[in-house]
């Protein structure tokens, strides 16, 4: 079997070449496939990210530390940081947060800044460009600068950054979180801009939604009376946040009057930032007159996109000057929602207008100047460099007016078609502000006066603050820097030429909607309208429907001798007031003669349903699908007739129209729509969930999920069998849900319980990554260990991290 030597040689070279090409191919990222050689290598790849339960003990020396820090991790992996001074405290917070959430902070910061293309390639360019157009980096820079201007917050951020970077510095590439290995990139050091980007990220989630474009179009295209029915100035059945009997004894700042006759142009593109109705929250507090113990109680449950790693990170911060516990946002020092030794606070989104869209008139096609107050003013150009993986960097130049960035047209290639107009946004988040100083102050306040003083700095991310303290006080405030507006300003596209539409004045802090120790013994907010019509300022128009707010208020009104358990049950309350109103109306309109036996048994169950979206309920599943189909039947023919962007009325408004017999607004016969949608839903159910209605289960079939923030397959949790609905206090939708639930009792000893759907560890290879999802789903709360000293409850210390100052 002699093979000629020359053949042998070529075969040899060929095979070695195959091996080398294979090696090369396995060392680079191909499409979405990570470099498999590196990735599967057990010495450095994903295998190195597998961890055992718990947090290992660790001792780290750093020359930046001043006195040294001890961090006690409790049995749930919550770090309790005991430091001697602010710098060491926030250094340790940056260190422990990076230890658990390094990749999350890195990725979310890049996402906020419009830098995803540099990780995944040109398919993210549209996303990145939209972020730059919205001025995310511009706003982050302004906020970072403001935070670095104050010595307290500058120290906080620098310490947090130093701690975060100290964690990165002692990592070898094989220690990087697994997502870095999957996406094949490296962590970058933390800078003050990262804290600015986090604020912008939260602002984008909470305050960037605008309906100005949809409302402008609707007002232009619809008959005036129809418009009023579909988009009433006050939503039906609303019980406002501030009790309606509140008196307003101050002289309001007068808004300017706009020039009459402005008719905004229709915009053909979709808005960059349409309102997301899934974002919302509840928070309430009762005073001692309503509780069994005689001590105030407070709860807070912010509803946000629930993802893994979790948006929240639990932490206790302790120095001789401060002792606070609660949830922090990775990338921000301090505790955002929580309590200290004197009081507790909760937060819900305010929902008043803080982003206005302006129609801009450019002087000529070069778009170097725009008209404002009768004068041609210069446009400022800000070039944005977007780096692209395996590609040339893209430069996108964003135009800025004094209002803010020109977001539309979103693409320069269509700018000529739109001439002479463009659209700019003015957004509170772009203005320099120091929300972090507010956090710094309310973490360490010792009285209601100090808490109030802290809120003055909470300017840019407008929120409702619930408060309760050990002295027995409760309060509610609609907090932030709200422009003084004329009626309706900001609800529609604003006139960029008219200075009356500028934000010339802001509502003074003393004039904000507030309620202190109200007669009724409780305060609450659920994103509904903050006030009734007699409040002298116009703040906005598009708040949440009545359902959650009314349910909370009636429950609290009726209850007395309230306990923390009662609050926990309230947080898990699945009752939908929408269903309670709508379902009897729907059932009445079915024609019993037309129903099959199987359909009859479904309607019988629906009639006996208690309107609770419990996981095992089949009626909840059926009602929800029926209602959604009905809304499509009612509104699709109406809105499909227009080829520009409009939005449906809120569900509450639609139910009101149905119940009030305003049926002429619908282009279809309501009874027929009810019957058809019922039949279609029934067919869909039998085809998808089987013939036996007993097998249809809300929790099993609703498809609630806690997804991974980079949407990696297998890294989230699908089919979470949760109860709840956005219409109930337990506002668990498909992807948005209560992201943290907390109940605090303000007695001589503060007692608190809480949970969130995720875990402290952000590592998908750690069993703690999603460990709390099941307890969150079925309403099991954890005791929060709030220690007054480093020695208290040593039996709950699972492990220790020691940060030692370096002494040569």
């Amino acid at each position, binding site marked *: 079997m*002699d*093979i000629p*030597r020359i053949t*042998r*040689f070529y*075969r*040899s*070279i*060929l*095979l*070695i*070449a*195959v*091996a*080398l090409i*294979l*090696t090369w191919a*396995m*060392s680079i990222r191909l499409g979405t*496939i990570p470099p*498999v*050689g*590196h990735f*599967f*290598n*057990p*010495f*450095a*790849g*994903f*295998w*190195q*990210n*597998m*961890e*055992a*339960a718990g947090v290992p003990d660790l001792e780290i020396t750093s020359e930046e530390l001043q006195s040294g820090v001890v961090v006690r991790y409790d049995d749930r992996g919550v770090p309790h940081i005991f430091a001697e001074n602010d710098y060491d405290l926030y250094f340790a917070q940056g260190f422990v947060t990076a230890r658990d959430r390094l990749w999350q902070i890195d990725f979310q910061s890049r996402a906020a800044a419009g830098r995803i293309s540099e990780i995944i390639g040109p398919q993210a360019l549209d996303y990145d460009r939209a972020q730059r157009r919205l001025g995310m980096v511009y706003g982050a820079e302004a906020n970072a600068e403001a935070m670095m201007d104050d010595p307290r917050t500058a120290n906080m951020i620098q310490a947090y950054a130093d701690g975060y970077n100290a964690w990165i510095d002692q990592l070898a590439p094989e220690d990087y979180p*697994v997502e870095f290995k*999957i996406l094949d990139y490296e962590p970058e050091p933390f800078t003050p801009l990262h804290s600015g980007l986090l604020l912008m990220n939260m602002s984008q989630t909470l305050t960037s939604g605008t309906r100005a474009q949809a409302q402008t179009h609707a007002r232009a295209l619809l008959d005036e009376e129809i418009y009023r029915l579909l988009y009433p100035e006050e939503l039906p059945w609303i019980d406002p946040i501030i009790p309606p009997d509140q008196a307003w004894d101050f002289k309001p700042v007068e808004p300017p009057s706009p020039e009459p006759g402005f008719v905004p142009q229709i915009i053909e593109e979709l808005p960059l930032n349409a309102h997301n109705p899934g974002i919302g929250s509840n928070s309430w507090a009762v005073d001692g007159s309503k509780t069994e113990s005689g001590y105030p109680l407070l709860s807070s449950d912010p509803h946000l996109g629930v993802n893994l790693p979790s948006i929240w990170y639990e932490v206790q911060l302790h120095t001789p000057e401060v002792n606070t516990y609660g949830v922090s946002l990775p990338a921000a020092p301090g505790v955002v929602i929580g309590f200290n030794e004197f009081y507790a606070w909760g937060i819900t989104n305010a929902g008043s207008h803080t982003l206005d869209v302006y129609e801009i008139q450019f002087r000529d096609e070069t778009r170097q100047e725009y008209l404002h107050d009768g004068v041609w003013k210069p446009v400022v150009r800000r070039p944005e460099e977007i780096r692209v993986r395996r590609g040339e960097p893209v430069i996108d130049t964003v135009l800025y007016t004094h209002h803010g960035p020109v977001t539309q047209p979103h693409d320069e290639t269509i700018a000529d078609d739109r001439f002479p107009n463009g659209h700019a946004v003015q957004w509170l988040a772009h203005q320099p502000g120091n929300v972090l100083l507010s956090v710094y102050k309310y973490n360490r306040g010792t009285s209601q006066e100090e808490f109030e003083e802290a809120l003055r700095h909470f300017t840019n991310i407008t929120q409702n603050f619930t408060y309760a303290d050990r002295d027995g006080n409760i309060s509610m405030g609609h907090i932030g820097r709200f422009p003084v507006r004329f009626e309706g300003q900001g609800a529609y596209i604003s006139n960029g030429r008219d200075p009356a539409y500028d934000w010339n004045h802001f509502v003074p802090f003393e004039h904000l909607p507030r309620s202190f120790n109200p007669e009724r013994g409780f305060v609450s907010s659920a994103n509904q309208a903050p006030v009734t019509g007699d409040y002298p300022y116009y703040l906005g128009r598009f708040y949440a429907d009545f359902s959650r707010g009314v349910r909370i208020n009636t429950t609290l009104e009726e209850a007395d001798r309230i306990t923390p358990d009662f609050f926990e049950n309230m947080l898990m309350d699945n009752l939908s007031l929408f269903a309670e109103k709508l379902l009897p109306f729907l059932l009445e309109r079915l024609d019993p003669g037309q129903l099959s036996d199987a359909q009859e048994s479904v309607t019988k169950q629906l009639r006996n349903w208690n309107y609770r979206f419990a996981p095992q309920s089949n009626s909840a599943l059926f009602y929800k699908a029926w209602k959604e189909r009905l809304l499509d039947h009612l509104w699709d023919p109406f809105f499909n007739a227009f080829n520009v962007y409009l939005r449906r009325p809120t569900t509450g408004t639609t139910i009101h129209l149905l119940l009030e017999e305003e049926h002429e607004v619908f282009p279809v016969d309501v009874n027929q729509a009810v019957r058809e949608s019922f039949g279609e839903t029934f067919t869909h159910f039998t085809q998808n969930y089987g013939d036996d209605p007993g097998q249809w289960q809300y929790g099993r079939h609703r498809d609630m999920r806690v997804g991974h923030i980079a949407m*990696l*397959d*297998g*890294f989230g949790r699908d089919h979470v069998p949760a109860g709840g609905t956005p219409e109930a206090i337990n506002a668990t939708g498909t992807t948005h849900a209560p992201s943290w639930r907390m109940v605090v009792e303000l007695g001589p000893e503060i007692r608190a319980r809480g949970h969130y759907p995720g875990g402290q560890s952000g590592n*998908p*290879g*750690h*069993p703690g*990554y999603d460990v709390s999802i099941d307890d969150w789903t079925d309403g099991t709360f954890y005791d929060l260990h709030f220690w007054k000293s480093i020695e208290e409850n040593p039996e709950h210390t699972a492990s220790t991290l020691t940060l030692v100052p370096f002494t040569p």
Partner: protein
Amino acid sequence: MTRDPVRISSLFLFLAVFFSAFLLQLILPWWIVVVIGIAAGVFSQKQPWHNFLIVFSAIGLLWLLIASYITLTNSAVLLPRISGLFQLPAVWMVYVVTILVGALPASIAALGASWLKPERS
């Protein structure tokens, strides 16, 4: 054809590949196993396919043992996630892929390198 100056046993070759890969991988990236494969093919006087099998089994076993050790001393919650990410039909396939990723390029390189030398009679 002269007789080779050194005849090494299969076991010796296996152990040499296994331990050199173990030690060098502590400091070098994964592709060092391919370099080791080439070296094994050049220095070993065994039949080319024999070298292929020895290198494949040495690297494959090394990666399997390390991966198994990590799994036994830690939580295995990551494995179904990796399996899901790569759409593998079963979680145990993560081990198969791991073995193939390390062993295949190294052993192909060893086979090619073996054929560089003149054939023995």
